């Protein structure tokens, strides 16, 4: 991310202050949101978006910065959702040990799966991670061991939580908690990608052979990226759990991994703020598209247009294809103004390749 106007450095600060102050603002946001901005529903909408943002940041460290495409990240997110619920409800643990347990277990899980799966590369790696995640989804969905509640899922035992975390009136506390975790994870990611290890990650993304020639072991660095990414995805899962108050099998399914990938692509792989914006936008659209589909403006459309619009996944599929074809760098790339060239070229139909610098090849 280079260049930009004079006001550029102030923009992140302004956004951050705006987000922190959101629970205090009771002004309505017409069209975009229902009711006042600080209504519980709206805060919840944003906060869940932030929780996905944490997971998307995590996913992006691996995909966007190291160039490793994992199809198994739902497993780690799911560990963050399920393990604290089980520890609190089934085993009667306190909040802090339950969360600590989930984070340690998620990290270990990532270490074991990463160590095995990274023995393979590229498409094989994607398949192995997909298979491991699928195994996890089967265990959860079929209620193996009677711990996960099967298809029904589990609800969080609210009695065991501190009072400030429980109930609709405390949505603003959860909102701030989520935002705080997001900021921490963001800063940690920033620190990581600018660290020597982060440089090596980007080196691996660009040319793994070359990194090897320099005498470094790509395996070790990729494993580090995988473990950090898995651990942070677990953090995202834990936060998501507190926001939604329960664990359902959707949190470990392959669809969630695809959603994470979508968020990263929408926002821009290999940028830090991009995936967060992508995640918030994804969740927002996922919720709002169904609302808009019921609105008068859409009801007036012919059925051929109206029916597909009611289906967020269908719309996302199309958005996804469009982005990959015309804006492979996502929002972040479009913002940086580097990606309008390919769009113009594509519309003009001159060059078929969209080759550009950066991103995953």
């Amino acid at each position: 991310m280079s260049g930009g106007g004079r006001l550029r450095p102030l923009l992140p600060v302004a956004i951050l202050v705006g987000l922190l102050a959101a629970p205090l603002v009771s002004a309505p946001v017409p069209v975009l949101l229902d009711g006042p901005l600080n209504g519980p529903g709206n805060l919840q909408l944003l906060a869940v978006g932030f929780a996905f943002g944490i997971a998307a940041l995590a996913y992006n460290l691996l995909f966007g910065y190291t160039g490793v495409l994992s199809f198994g990240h739902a497993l780690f997110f799911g560990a963050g959702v399920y393990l604290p619920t089980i520890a609190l409800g089934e085993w009667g643990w306190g909040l802090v040990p339950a969360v600590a347990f989930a984070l340690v277990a998620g990290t270990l899980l990532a270490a074991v799966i990463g160590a095995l799966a990274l023995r393979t590369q590229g498409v094989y790696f994607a398949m192995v991670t997909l298979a491991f995640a699928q195994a996890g989804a089967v265990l959860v969905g079929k209620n193996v061991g009677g711990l996960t509640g099967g298809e029904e899922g589990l609800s969080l035992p609210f009695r065991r939580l501190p009072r400030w975390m429980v109930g609709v009136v405390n949505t603003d506390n959860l909102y701030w908690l989520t935002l705080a975790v997001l900021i921490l994870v963001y800063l940690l990611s920033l620190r990581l990608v600018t660290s020597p290890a982060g440089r090596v990650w980007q080196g691996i993304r660009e040319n793994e052979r070359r990194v090897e020639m320099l005498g470094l072991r790509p395996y070790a660095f990729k494993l580090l990226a995988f473990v950090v990414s898995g651990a942070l995805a677990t953090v995202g899962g834990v936060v998501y759990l507190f926001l939604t108050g329960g664990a359902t099998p959707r949190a470990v399914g392959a669809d969630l991994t695809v959603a994470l990938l979508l968020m990263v692509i929408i926002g821009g792989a290999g940028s830090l703020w991009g995936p967060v914006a992508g995640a918030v936008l994804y969740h927002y659209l996922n919720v709002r598209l169904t609302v808009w589909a019921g609105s008068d403006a859409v009801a007036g459309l012919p059925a051929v247009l109206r029916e597909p619009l009611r289906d967020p996944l269908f719309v996302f599929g199309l958005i996804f294809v469009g982005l990959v074809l015309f804006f492979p760098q996502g929002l972040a790339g479009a913002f940086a103004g580097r990606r309008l060239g390919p769009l113009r070229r594509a519309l003009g139909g001159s060059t078929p390749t969209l080759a550009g610098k950066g991103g995953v090849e």
Partner: protein
Amino acid sequence: MSTIVLLTLTGLALAAMYFLLAAGLSLIFGLMDVLNFAHGAFFTWGAYVAWWTVGRAADVLGPTGAFLLALVAATLAVAALAAAVEIGLLRPLYRRPIYQVLVTLGIGLALSQLTSVIWRPDARPFPQPDWLVATSTVFGARVPNNRFLLIAAALAVLGGLLLFLRRTRYGLIVRAGAENREMVQALGIDVDRAFTLVFALGGALAGLGGVFGAAYFGSINPNFGSVNLIFAFIVVVIGGLGSVTGSALAAVVIGLAQQFGNYYTSWAGDFVVVLLLAVVLLVRPRGLLGTLQ
């Protein structure tokens, strides 16, 4: 004894269905380096086209005629769909395999969701002729006839594919292209056309597989393909990417392991399959018969 026979035959039928999906995936990957995530949607569309055709044609042609017409319609329709996807969306992204994979993921999402938009998300019973649902007794086991038809179809496809690859000019191009694409191009052969052909062929097999899958399970729903796609991926990787015979072999292993495992507990089969994948990848990363890595 009869249980073992039943499980073996249903396992082989399941294997046949996985093979129909996996063969196309494997060919596409072998030649184009693209892991086609839209393959599950092709499978789903095959099933829905067949269901739609049977619904329209059953009164005129009778159940058997309608089923046969549905097989042809699904195969052709999905082949055309696949060709359109390849020409319209994958061609602009040649040389960028990861982006091609992502595009197929997006198309797969949109296409399978489109079935839910058009025909609602609920499962639909799949009407098939009585003789397909009726059972035959083999060593005391009562096995539905559609299992045998599925196995026979997969064997025919396997034979046909091997003949195509080994005995025809296009098969030669496909095999050579998988080996070294630049060299084939340098010899003045239009590899792009081979890409479209292979993608359409894979689509045709997925469409065909979708019809048989619908007959096997007796009902269809919009997630129909994506569930089976994961197992087909596993089959492709275990068999060795790019090897049709390897896919057939791996499909048999996976189909049987899954059937026998799931007979004991509802989840053991799926779990064993994943375990098998992990073992194969650790011991023999290129798969049973794979040459590519």
